[in-house]
């Protein structure tokens, strides 16, 4: 029964597919699930992005240099996250001279790293740094990112040496740059 779980899970996922593939028939989704499962057993070792547990990830939230970090927590299955990603990309490109760096922290599940995350990043040609945070002990680490965070995504932490703010919400480009300007001016 336990063994069946991931298959059912993936089949459902491919069905929802963030709304894109909702019309897929059952056969296709089962095939997708099967191929994904095989891929999964072919292990995640060669995943393109660095994978952190929270202990190894935490220093990324406390760097003491001259850069303003925009740390966005997202996942490929999170529709509002996907919608705001272009704004973070734009900020990463346009604020380079202001020493701003965007870090996209994927909370995708291990089964999705090769099957969804990598293709997504490639397709969207994301230029910001992408890292994976894989730590199921969420109740332990969520408060360490911010006491204000209930656990919903999208969520964003903006910090530099002088200032630190956390936002459990989505952004428009205008909203994001408005917040960011408080850090760089």
């Amino acid at each position, binding site marked *: *029964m*336990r063994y069946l*779980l991931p298959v059912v*899970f993936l089949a*459902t*996922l491919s*069905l*929802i597919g963030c*709304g894109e593939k*909702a019309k897929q028939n059952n056969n296709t989704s089962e095939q997708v699930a099967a191929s994904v499962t095989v891929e999964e057993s072919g292990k995640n070792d060669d995943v393109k992005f660095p994978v952190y547990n929270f202990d190894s990830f935490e220093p990324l939230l406390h760097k003491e240099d001259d850069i303003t970090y925009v740390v966005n927590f997202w*996942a490929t*299955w*999170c*529709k*509002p996250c996907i919608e705001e990603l272009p704004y973070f990309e734009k900020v990463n490109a346009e604020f380079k001279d202001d020493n701003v760096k965007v870090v996209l922290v994927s*909370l995708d*599940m*291990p089964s999705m790293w090769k099957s969804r995350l990598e293709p997504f990043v490639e397709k969207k040609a994301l230029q910001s740094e992408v890292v994976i945070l894989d730590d*199921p*002990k*969420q*109740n*332990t680490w*969520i*408060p360490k990112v911010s006491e204000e*965070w*209930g*656990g*919903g*995504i*999208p969520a964003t932490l903006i910090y530099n040496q002088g200032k630190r703010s956390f936002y459990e919400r989505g952004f428009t480009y205008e909203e994001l740059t408005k917040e960011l300007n408080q850090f760089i001016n």
Partner: protein
Amino acid sequence: MKTFKILGALILLISMASFVGNTTTEKGYAIGDTAADFSLKNIDGKMVSLSDYSDAKGFLVIFTCNTCPYAVAYEDRIIELDAKYKSKGVPVIAINPNNPSAKPGDSFDKMKVRANEKGFTFPYLLDEGQKVYPQYGATRTPHVYLLEKTADGNVVKYIGAIDDNYQDASKVDEKYVEDAVDAMLAGKEIKVTSTKAIGCTIKV
């Protein structure tokens, strides 16, 4: 610019109202609050309220849905919770808080399909009009509220995640919900009364 001012004034008014009024209405329930009853449509077409359960000692009100990967990861464990605690007087009441027009995969018809596929043994209700989840203060799926039925109403005893490992049920160290229900039924103090977890934002 004018609309901004009006909007600003409105936000100010709302936030002021929340200070003046009952503070629990804006942010949802805290531990010890009395939860309001509701009347929501189940997948079998019948309306369900907590007051229908005259013999219950409490409830596991779980905001969940069809489409969120975390909710899906917990489906089997929600079924297990109902199997374990319904007979002890604490049934699962699942509520889908998402707006189906924002998330078609969470429509009433799709809820029926999913419940049938998984063999849900508990009511799976649609929060039609999205009035109930804000009262509770649910922000994501899955989001659990353990209620204890008392003479003064249904008191909130635990808020949060089901356990501490969404990825793998066999690697769970702390079964937050089970520990809370067990303590409640034994008349003991619940040690962990609220937990945080990553979840899917409720779609409005």
